């Protein structure tokens, strides 16, 4: 093995090729393809993304959510509705496409905001340490002990002109704290390294050291956290929609579809209403987590098998 490694490295030197240290993309690809479960999960994610985002291109949002009581509660495969219809006569497949897309988009939106805010806060907190760190971490502690779900429900009900975008902001308001904590830990371990001192003696500003020197060294952690955060944020959105405090009723979501299971009658006799959305949520969450674990192995050499 080591011999093989040496060969490749000398080849690289001969070719004068530039290779990134432990080239992250290659390592990630290798980890995903080596693990059959991760590979399946990866394919499932791609399939769901194609199904929801691709499908929604051919659908008209208003038409999908149009009520037509005459068609209500068709079962599996009746009258050309593959997965039947809901109480308003809306086609479940189309709702699934639109709802899945909305849920994933909101999960991604929340993740984007949380990661950016969490990263900046974590960088500042971990890099400066001392009083700044203490103050920021106490604020984070405070937000983390708040009962997030009830506050979100209250905010959803009191906000005027409520829209999917407001939901994204409301979830993000409480979501960034975990990310900040996570990144702070990595920055803490990086900031004492000699290359940071070397940058200081080279006259780089703190800002530059944080974003140009330290940040590239934790990129693999960022990728991992982003992937896993998307799954959990889709979960938060569907939970809120499930109890009717999520997306407005005019916007389909996985949560509202699963919400049909609130009615015992639906649970027993109309499984087509809630089962597809549940399966889809389960599939995407599990898949993202499996891919995330493969990424984690790629990011941390100690977790790798070879």
């Amino acid at each position, binding site marked *: 093995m080591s011999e093989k490694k040496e060969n490749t490295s000398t080849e690289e*030197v001969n070719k004068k090729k530039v290779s990134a*240290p432990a080239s992250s993309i290659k390592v990630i690809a290798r980890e995903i393809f080596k693990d059959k479960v991760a590979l399946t999960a990866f394919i499932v994610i791609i399939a769901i993304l194609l199904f929801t985002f691709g499908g929604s291109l051919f659908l008209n949002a208003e038409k999908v959510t149009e009520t037509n009581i005459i068609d209500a509660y068709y079962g599996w495969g009746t009258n050309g509705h593959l997965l039947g219809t809901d109480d308003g006569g809306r086609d479940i497949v189309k709702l699934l496409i639109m709802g899945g897309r909305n849920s994933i988009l909101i999960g991604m939106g929340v993740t984007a905001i949380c990661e950016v805010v969490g990263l900046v806060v974590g960088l500042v907190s971990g890099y400066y340490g001392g009083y700044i760190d203490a103050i920021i971490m106490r604020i984070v502690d405070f937000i983390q002990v708040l009962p997030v779900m009830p506050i979100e429900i209250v905010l959803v009900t009191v906000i005027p002109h409520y829209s999917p975008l407001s939901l994204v902001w409301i979830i993000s308001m409480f979501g960034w704290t975990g990310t900040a904590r996570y990144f702070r830990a990595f920055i803490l371990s990086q900031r004492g390294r000699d290359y940071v001192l070397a940058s200081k*003696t080279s*006259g*780089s500003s703190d800002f530059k050291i944080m974003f140009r020197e330290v940040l590239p060294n934790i990129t693999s952690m960022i990728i991992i956290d982003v992937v896993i955060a998307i799954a959990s944020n889709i979960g938060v959105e569907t939970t809120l929609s499930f109890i009717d405090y999520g997306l407005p009723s005019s916007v389909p979501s996985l949560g509202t579809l699963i919400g049909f299971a609130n009615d015992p009658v639906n649970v027993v006799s109309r499984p087509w209403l809630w089962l597809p959305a549940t399966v889809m949520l389960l599939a995407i969450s599990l898949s993202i987590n499996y891919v995330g674990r493969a990424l984690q192995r790629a990011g941390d050499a100690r977790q790798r098998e070879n």
Partner: protein
Amino acid sequence: MAKEIIQVKDLKVHYPIRSGFWNRITDYVRAVDGVNITINEGETYGLIGESGSGKSTTGKAIVGVEPVTSGEIIYHDVDITKSKNRRKLNYNKDVQMIFQDSMSSLNPRKRIEDIIAEPIRNFENLTTDQERDRVQELLDIVGMPSDSIYKYPHEFSGGQRQRIGVARAVATNPRLIVADEPTSALDLSVQAQVLNFMKHIQQQYNIAYLFISHDLGVVKHMSENLAIMHRGRLVEIGSREDIYNHPMHIYTKRLLSAIPVVDVEHRAENKKHREEVEQEFQNDQSKWYDQEGRVFPLQQVSGKHWVALPKDELEREELKEEGRN
């Protein structure tokens, strides 16, 4: 007499020890406790001591990356322990550092070009082409191939990486370089290589070094003046001859006796000498250190030679020294 470039006056770096219910400061770790050093232009000043003696902390304080508890570091008549003064002077353009661990001192995600160019970008206004020429020139000086600029630190051997560290340190034509055990992580042949590069650069650009090391052999090769440090304080300072030929303090003697000597015929003799010194060190602690185990203030012996001993002990030691001659 050469002009002095930097003066360290009564430098102290203390770290608080917190304990108890309120997490209050109960004591201090005196990493550096009253160190005075003067370094002249273009000279190599050796700073020697065991691990944990505070020599690296002193070096870091001089470069300005370690907050100082008290004391002054005078450069160009300004106290650079204050960050405001450092910024005003562009201090780190003139004072740079070479680190012990070359792997961790080079950012693994940056190419050699960006690593060496970092101080140039911060302190000098060069166009991209001029900057690249300068980096090439620096790589030439430390004897690295020119295609290195596109590579990453992990693609080099330890000696090559340390030479990259040297190239970065000299990039802005500094007046003083603090070399913090620059060769202790390298094997002997590579050590010599790096040291020769450092000497070569010194002669070419008249750079002063503060050479921090625990290896007396290396320091003998490099420096004219040196200081021995123990428990955060200086135990002996002097010229190379003073320290190597007339060591006064037991700690210095102990360090010197620890240098391995290839001398088969006198092996038993050398061993006996080593054991004598060790015996003296173990038995007469009170003679060399005060009640708290701290090192005494320095007393002048002759010209440049100072040793940390009480007055009466110093006289006795001098008599003993004379008797021997």
